[in-house]
């Protein structure tokens, strides 16, 4: 099956703003995605969480748009919007009825050229972000332990610290920090605007020119060093979790940078081990051994050194040592024998299905186009990356597992419930001592993105165990 390419037009304004347009007239909506080349990897020491706090400030008003009016203009025009921060970038995006494209460009350009900050708004958003941290990490089982896992995988602080940051660093952020960050990173030459949907290209080009061309460029931001030594930063820790009802096991590895030649086969190996009920680890641990109630994991894709993690919840009476041994054995088998022909067919069809399904949404396309333009300078990758994945051979997958999932170079956290189920009110079990020579644990530090919690609503079948994902991303 061949997928027809989507039309892609790419150009840059004189001020360096990169623009990607893709017309599609099937539904009268338009999606705009603005990506800035700044994420938590750019944060300096003492200011963890700042890129995300700053993202909140981008909704607090600019020269012609009052505080909170951004939300209102978008919603009141029948649109949806959000902003998110990851280690790699900060993005702002909206989907609107097609005829509201000028509104989106007016709003995005006004804050790119003239953000306004006040102490009152900074204090207010600091509070909102601290509640976001409590909601998604501090008050939830397993989430902070997962942030800790990242610190065991990575040695370089640029990679190891979380996007949500620490309470103390959030408290320390000042107005001057906000102004400096805006000047350095929120310039047109450090951003991409992608527009996908039901518009006329000539009209869109004229609107982009009108709203963005007069915003002056800034000096290129300082480079980021994300280099890592091959070994993980820490091998083994226990984590006393105040809210987990059941113990858990977390394993983490370093992985190659996204789009590097070694990344593609490792990503597919991760799918074979972890994706769905036909995956090797599900079939081995949940089904065959019946040793865990759930196993999950994925690859955390970054421009620099990336990671792969596995998360499992043992059944009563099972030891984490036995479960780790079983996981290691599965990895070694894949490294020794490689995937089967049936697994290669499965990978191929799933790649195709995911690729086609994702294309339905204009927002999905806008976000991928913006990423490829920002990270790789080449939005055409949207049309060619599928082919790149389909070219991966079984031998490459086998070699990637042997090379990158070294069972001796693994970070491991055992999560221990502080108050085991049924023991409420009793004295908490004593914490296991961390293995000597490991860094001190900082409770309340970094993490996995757990999906934002919907308001308590009607009964629906939900997975009672919300598991973290490696793509740490905070929303506004």
């Amino acid at each position, binding site marked *: 099956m061949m997928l027809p390419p989507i039309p892609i037009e790419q150009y840059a304004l004189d001020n360096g703003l990169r623009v990607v347009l893709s017309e599609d007239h099937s539904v009268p909506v338009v999606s705009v995605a603005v990506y800035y080349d700044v994420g938590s990897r750019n944060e300096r020491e003492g200011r963890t969480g700042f890129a995300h706090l700053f993202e909140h400030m981008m909704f607090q008003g600019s020269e012609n748009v009052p505080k909170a009016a951004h939300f209102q203009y978008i919603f009141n025009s029948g649109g949806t919007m959000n902003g998110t921060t990851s280690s790699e970038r900060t993005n702002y995006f909206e989907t609107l009825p097609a005829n509201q494209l000028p509104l989106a460009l007016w709003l995005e350009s006004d804050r790119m050229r003239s953000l306004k900050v006040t102490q009152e708004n900074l204090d207010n958003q600091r509070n909102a972000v601290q509640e976001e941290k409590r909601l998604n990490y501090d*008050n*939830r089982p397993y989430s902070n332990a997962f942030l800790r896992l990242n610190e065991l995988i990575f040695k370089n602080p640029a990679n190891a610290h979380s996007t949500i940051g620490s309470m103390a660093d959030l408290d320390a952020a000042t107005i001057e920090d906000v102004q400096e960050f805006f000047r350095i990173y929120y310039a047109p030459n450090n951003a991409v605007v992608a527009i996908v949907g039901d518009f006329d290209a000539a009209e869109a080009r004229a609107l982009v020119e009108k709203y963005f061309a007069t915003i002056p460029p800034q000096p290129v931001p300082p480079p980021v060093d994300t280099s890592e030594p091959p070994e993980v930063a820490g091998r083994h820790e226990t984590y006393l979790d105040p809210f987990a009802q059941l113990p858990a096991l977390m394993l983490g590895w370093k992985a190659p940078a996204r789009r590097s030649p070694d990344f593609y086969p490792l990503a597919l190996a991760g799918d074979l081990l972890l994706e769905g009920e036909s995956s090797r680890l599900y079939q081995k641990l949940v089904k065959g051994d019946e040793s865990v109630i759930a196993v999950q994991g994925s690859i955390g894709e970054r421009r620099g050194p990336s990671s792969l993690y596995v998360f499992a919840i043992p059944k009563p009476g099972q030891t984490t040592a036995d479960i780790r041994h079983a996981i290691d054995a599965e990895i070694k088998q894949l490294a020794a024998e490689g995937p089967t022909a049936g697994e290669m067919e499965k990978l191929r069809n799933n790649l195709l299905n995911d690729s086609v399904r994702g294309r339905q949404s204009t927002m999905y396309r806008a976000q991928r186009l913006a990423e490829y333009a920002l990270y790789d300078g080449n939005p055409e990758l949207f049309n060619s990356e599928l082919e790149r994945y389909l070219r991966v051979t079984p031998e490459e997958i086998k070699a990637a597992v042997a090379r990158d999932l070294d069972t001796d170079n693994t970070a491991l956290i055992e999560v221990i419930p502080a108050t085991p189920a049924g023991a409420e009110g009793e004295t908490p079990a004593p914490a296991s001592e961390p293995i000597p020579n490991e860094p001190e644990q900082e409770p309340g530090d970094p993490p996995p993105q757990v999906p934002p919690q919907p*308001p308590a609503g009607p009964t629906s079948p939900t997975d009672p165990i919300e598991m973290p994902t490696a793509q740490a991303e905070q929303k506004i």
Partner: protein
Amino acid sequence: MNQTETLVEAFRREPPAPLAPRTLTLPRPEETTLANGMRVVFVENRRLPLVSYRLAFLSGNADDPPDLPGLTDILTGMLNEGTATRTSRQIADAVARIGATISAGANSDYTTVGAGALSNYQDETLELMADLSLRPSFPADELELTKQNALQNLIAQRGQPAFLANERLAKVIYGEHPYATVAPTPASISAMTRERMATFHREKFIPNDAILIVGGDVEREAVLRRVEELFGAWQPGHVEPARFPALPKRADRVAYLVDRPGSAQSNIVIANPAIKRTDPDYFPMLVMHTILGANASSRLFMNLREEKGYTYGAYTSLDARRAAGSFRATAEVRTSVTGDSLKEFFYELSRIREDLVSEKELRDAQSYLTGIFPIRLETLDGLLDQLMQIRLFGLPADYLETYRERIEAVTRDEVRRVAREQLAPDTAAIVIVGDAAAVRAQVQPYAETIELYDSTGQGKEK
């Protein structure tokens, strides 16, 4: 921080006018009924080489046998664990090999099996979906494993404050009504047997209570022929109309405190019984809910987050189901402002009952609801979900065509009338999951009574 101080650009001062509107072409689904009573809805969309299916039944968790709460959930979870001709492993491999997805689930009112695939695998996918839905075998060893894991999941979910809040709220709002149940119990899980499952499946998974929706890059005649082959011999059964007890009458405002020692926040839910989905006031309620709390420009968000900074988000939810409903206002706030947050919640609940909303608020809410409508129809699955809900709730056939008119017809007076009729702050249930010792005194001024529970759901000494 103006990077362009030297430029005066007057065109930036006001939001730009929209361009000429572009029209939305609504899909035209066709519907037919098989001899055994199964309704089949077909909608062609050739934009991409995809197909999606939904098989929906008009019974859900509320129809569980009284002695086996959670049976529908566990049963739907077992559909892919074995059929008359396939093992669990064979199903998992067969679905994965063609890159398809098949998932089954239930809510309180409905049970659905959904599937999606590349259109070149449409036949295989529909055949697998039919096999799972019609011929599950509930193998003994798989049932035993499912039960063991379900028992552990019951323990795990008590670590989630949102689960604890939802559990307590459902009990106090719905009382004897089956909507009061949000999860199986250890006793019900232990009591589930292959025989009970097979019998229940035979009674509830019947064609005369089912709707199959097919959409995407498919050819009408070929699909209908295949549907007839796969589902035509399925024998109809007897549909027992559900009779549910009434909701408890609430006489005063009570706080239900679920103690979670050391909790980093208070999860607050304020609720009262409200309309069901088919109520004629659904559209005014939807507009009122949008103004009060549906999104990040609604009153609650603007007040509790953007002005006060108490929370990451404060929202309302319109929990309008087939047989009953509730209206809920929620936020997760830091422990020290639990009382202050209750003050703002009750201020907003009372303001929208007392004063007419402004013309602008009404217009903005209407424009939001009519504008996001086409975004939902962007994907095949979004479209199929709309078509399914219309049929499951028995909404008018022209629902999609008239949706925007119905939103636009709502008036300020109607918004206030439904707020007065459907919001009951004086008799509301306040559920708070948090550190009871730290919040109890803060809650005292806002409730006539406080009941205390522990995180296992049991009542505690005061």
